[in-house]
């Protein structure tokens, strides 16, 4: 019976990639509206924080998970996006969506340069080169302090909700469109747009070729794939996402400063991607949520247990580290990998010894 239900549900879903992905994004938008409207300013700003981590993380999972290139420099790419946004908004002449697109474009351009260098490197050498990026870029901001504001950084004037929008929201929900909520909306709508485009890409030829290059270079090359070009393309797509994430970060934090883009940011993104499940967009979302919501939850728990403020605050990175180690030991495929494995085991038990090979259709991994 559940089989016929899922079959009926599958018939209702659109058959095209675009239709399916659009439907998913619209459902996501509905959830976002409900959640943001039902939560207060503090949670709103947490969701805004999660959105910029997630935008960068979904881009990183395409690069690292699908194409097999590790990057410890995505924090630096976010900095490129953040500073671009800050500089453009400072002029006062550029509307914020244009500034965000420009940030994505500039970072994509940086991605071409870094990607071209990275395409020739493997494993630890690639990690080292991108690490240098993470260390070097914030230094540039300090060196050219006339333009980038040095250690103090750039103050970024966040966009304010236009009056007509605030009125419209008040009319519908009888609630104020606070600044925090508006920024969270900007972040999440950007994230959903990025998810739509990346889901399209991973289901297409490009997702397949990226994975093929990751799995066997020689065989991919013999099939006519230009390895370097595909690697650089993955890097550029990933960098554009990081740039957009940086743009949202700048507007949410209202600041683009070197201290915000340390190596810790790059490592956090990488752990988010790995903990969630390498190569999966949903996994990257899960990892970003963990990144944002776990530390305050742990700190809160610590204070409840009678720890002092400092002790409780130090508990958070400890627990995060423990979670990372446990996930790597228990579920190397990340949270999502573990879920898939459980589901697989369950269906296999239900099907008994029925031959899986008889299933003729293939599913795209997402």
């Amino acid at each position, binding site marked *: 019976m559940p089989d016929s239900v899922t079959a009926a549900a599958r018939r209702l879903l659109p058959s095209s990639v675009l239709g399916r992905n659009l439907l998913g994004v619209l459902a996501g938008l509905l959830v976002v509206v409900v959640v943001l409207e039902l939560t207060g300013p503090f949670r709103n700003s947490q969701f805004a924080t999660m959105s910029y981590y997630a935008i960068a993380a979904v881009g990183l999972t395409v690069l690292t998970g699908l194409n097999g290139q590790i990057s410890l420099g995505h924090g630096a790419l976010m900095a490129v996006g953040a500073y671009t946004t800050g500089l453009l908004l400072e002029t006062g002449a550029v509307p914020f969506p244009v500034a965000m697109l420009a940030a994505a474009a500039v970072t994509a351009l940086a991605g071409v340069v870094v990607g071209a260098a990275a395409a020739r490197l493997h494993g630890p050498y690639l990690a080292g080169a991108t690490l240098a990026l993470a260390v070097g870029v914030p230094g540039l901001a300090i060196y050219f302090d006339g333009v980038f504001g040095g250690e103090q950084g750039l103050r970024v004037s966040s966009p304010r909700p236009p009056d007509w929008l605030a009125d419209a929201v008040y009319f519908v929900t009888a609630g104020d469109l606070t600044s925090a909520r508006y920024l969270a909306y900007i972040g999440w709508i950007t994230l959903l747009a990025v998810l739509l485009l990346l889901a399209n890409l991973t289901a297409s030829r490009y997702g397949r070729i990226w994975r093929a290059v990751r799995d066997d270079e020689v*065989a991919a090359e013999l099939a006519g794939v230009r390895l370097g070009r595909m690697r650089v393309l993955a890097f550029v797509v990933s960098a554009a996402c990081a740039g957009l994430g940086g743009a949202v970060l700048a507007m949410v934090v209202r600041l683009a400063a070197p201290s915000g883009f340390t190596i810790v940011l790059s490592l956090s993104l990488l752990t988010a991607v790995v903990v969630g499940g390498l190569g999966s967009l949903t996994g990257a979302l899960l990892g970003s949520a963990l990144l944002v919501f776990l530390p305050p939850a742990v700190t809160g728990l610590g204070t409840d247990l009678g720890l002092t403020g400092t002790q409780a605050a130090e508990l958070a990175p400890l627990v995060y580290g423990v979670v990372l180690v446990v996930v790597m030991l228990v579920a190397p495929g990340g949270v999502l990998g573990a879920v898939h494995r459980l589901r697989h085991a369950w269906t296999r038990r239900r099907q008994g010894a029925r031959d899986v090979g008889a299933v*003729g259709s293939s599913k795209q991994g997402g």
Partner: protein
Amino acid sequence: MTSPGTSETTGRAGTGHRHARGRPDPAPLFAVSGVTVRFGGLTALDDVSLAVRPHEVHGVIGPNGAGKTTLFNVCCGFVRPDAGTISRHGTPLTDLRPHRLAGMGVARTLQGLGLFRGLTVTENVMVGADRFRRSGFVSALLALPRSAADERALRERAWRAMSDAGVAEFAGRYPGSLPYAVQKRVALARALAADPELLLLDEPASGLGHDEISELGAFVRGLAERMSIVLVDHHMDLVMSVCDRITVLDFGRVVAAGAPEEVRDDPAVVDAYLGEEAHRGGSDGNDGNDGNDG
């Protein structure tokens, strides 16, 4: 495995068999002439020439270390020859690169299979068909209808290649979960999906059982209806029964070339390699293959 050709092609009994040999040298589809490769002080290939005619199965044999794989790597652009030329339809290929091969209609299987373990069988074979894609990055990013149509066309090509190679029933499986013999056929399907005019098979019979090898032989003969094939293998029965012509390498030099029976009786070949193998092959008394009856 189903024979893809229209005519009955079993062993050397088929009517279309060796039709390439009697003719007065048609223009070679693919030719290697005077190729020399040195690795440091070692000469891996020394003035090697080889011409593959249309619809011909051409065997390359020789003892271990004779330079067979190096020759394949030269044909694929993985190794640059120190001297000599490679030409296709009479045109020299000056800047041969591996990624350009597929576009020229040359496909190759690898000794180590090189299947993409994170891709399903269908996806593996679709990568092989990738040279037939028509839509670009933007249509994939926006999932435009053009991209969807492209994917359908590639899937269809992959499906045909999988049916030919007899692996369609494993479409949704991952290569790692399949027996080795099936994985080899998936790799073959991936090469066929490129719809090549020249197929380079690197040890297609290694690791296969006796029956699977005879099946493979019939399949390769059937493929010759559609393309030329260069075959490197150690299984003498297979090479002798399937190939129209054979080139024998020893220490990087061509010691003999010609039809199987000529090559087999050549004293240089017997010296280098075949003597021992042929006697062993003859004592096996192979049915279905009459390669040792001469």
